[in-house]
């Protein structure tokens, strides 16, 4: 399985996908550092999860 040809939606999808991945791991790090409450972490992670599954099919198309 490899990332396929670049469609017009590839770059925006990649940006959203990377942001979603960041939104999955950075809030827990912020919680660990004591700068974000857990409920906010959970909320951001859920939104990031939704965004990831919207972006990933466009970013990670399979040959």
């Amino acid at each position, binding site marked *: 399985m490899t990332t396929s040809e670049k469609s017009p939606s590839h770059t925006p999808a990649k940006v959203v996908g990377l942001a979603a*991945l960041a939104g999955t*791991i950075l*809030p*827990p790090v912020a919680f660990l550092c*004591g700068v974000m409450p857990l409920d906010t972490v*959970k909320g951001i*992670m859920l939104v*990031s*999860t939704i965004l990831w599954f919207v972006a990933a099919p466009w970013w990670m198309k*399979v040959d």
Partner: protein
Amino acid sequence: MTSHEYEHAGQGMVDEVESPAVGSEYERERVPESALKGPSAFWGMYAGEHTAGTEFMIGPLFVKWGADAFSLIVGLLIGNLLAVLTWRYLTAPIACSERLTLYYKMEKIAGRGLVTVYNLANGLLFCFLAGSMITVSATAVGPFFPAGTIAMPTFSSTMPTGPAWIASCIVIGAAMTFVALKGYDVVALVGHYSAPWMFLIFLACAVVTLGKLGTTDVWALLTPPPGTEQSISFVGIVLFAWFCNAAMHIGMADLSVLRFAKKPSAGWASAAGMFLGHYVAWICAALLLIYWVKEKGVNPQEGKDPGTMVNDAVGWAGLVCIIIAGWTTANPTIYRAGLAFQGVLPGLSRTGATLLAGAVCIAAGIFPAFAMRLLDFVGVYGTILAPVGGLIVVDHFLADLVGIDRDPAAKSGESVNMAVLIAWLVPVLIGLSMTAVSPVNPWGFEVPPWYLPLPCTMACGILYILLSKFASGRAAAAA
């Protein structure tokens, strides 16, 4: 626990396989040069397929058994390294030289009839594995309902915990079976897309847990309290990490995947699965239970269900992760188990075979015993299936040296090579009789199942040489 066993079951038995994954073509011929793939194809596949829902069970089970920090951090490192080296220096070189599926290579050595037996064993073991995944996924349903609606199983649960639990397992299992009836292309894609996100969810669970515990000293957290009985040793952890995928590496099931590799160095790609899924993810999952033991007073011998722990740590994103991790692994497993059953019962339709496999999986999922004894089950799985790798190693490296035929069944046309059957069954039956899962143990001691794949595989190879030489000697005398 691995999730790509599904790519192999049924191959050689059913000609049309609707898999988009590596390994579904050229089932009865060498892979041509034009179809070979570079290393990147394998890194992503191994990374995704070794991060499954069952990882949420294995880490906490180590905590239950009192594993210490050194065993977990260094033992898992060594065990996973040994697994990677086995893939790289044993499985991949044979795969790149033969370029055949395990099933076709086995057919040439053992005969088509024995491949059917192997497939049946594989199919049934797949069903129990998928059942464990249904169990884990069902624990993620509980937090969506008011507390106490669904009684969750603990480590000591062997029987269903109540009607709501049974209903959860049936609904999840039925949904998985229904999708399996449609083929599993979509689920394979979802699994592919999920991999990086899923790994980060595991990591996020650990990071949040560290935040809740107010420390980043992972070594201290993984150190069990004084007086904790250690039921698994350092060597036990090393061997478990090495052989939890024994069927794949020394058992040669991954010939079906790595035969597409341009060079044996593609075997290094297994490191992605081992060190992300079987190292980082297991330790992250272990930390979840450690938090519940330290802060909420949970008895480590009873444990806490993955759904509750993950929901407490990262919320609904974690619950989605458990369900997807279980679904993407169990669904194709059900599909492939169906193919295996269809190979054994050719009169059965594809739909009927998949429904049969799904029913067995749901039945296994309802009973938490399989998930709660996952470490034992994985060891038994490797002990039964890995020895066939010994036959292939002998055939590939030693046959000419010791003076026995290569691919004997292909030359003789026999359906069952008795030398193979005896060489496979004798070590497996003796080995399993030494374990706690055996109803009869005449030995007076017990051996954990994950100690057995290597000795059984070696014994199988040695017996195969001896029996083949004996058979050829008798044939020569008769002539």
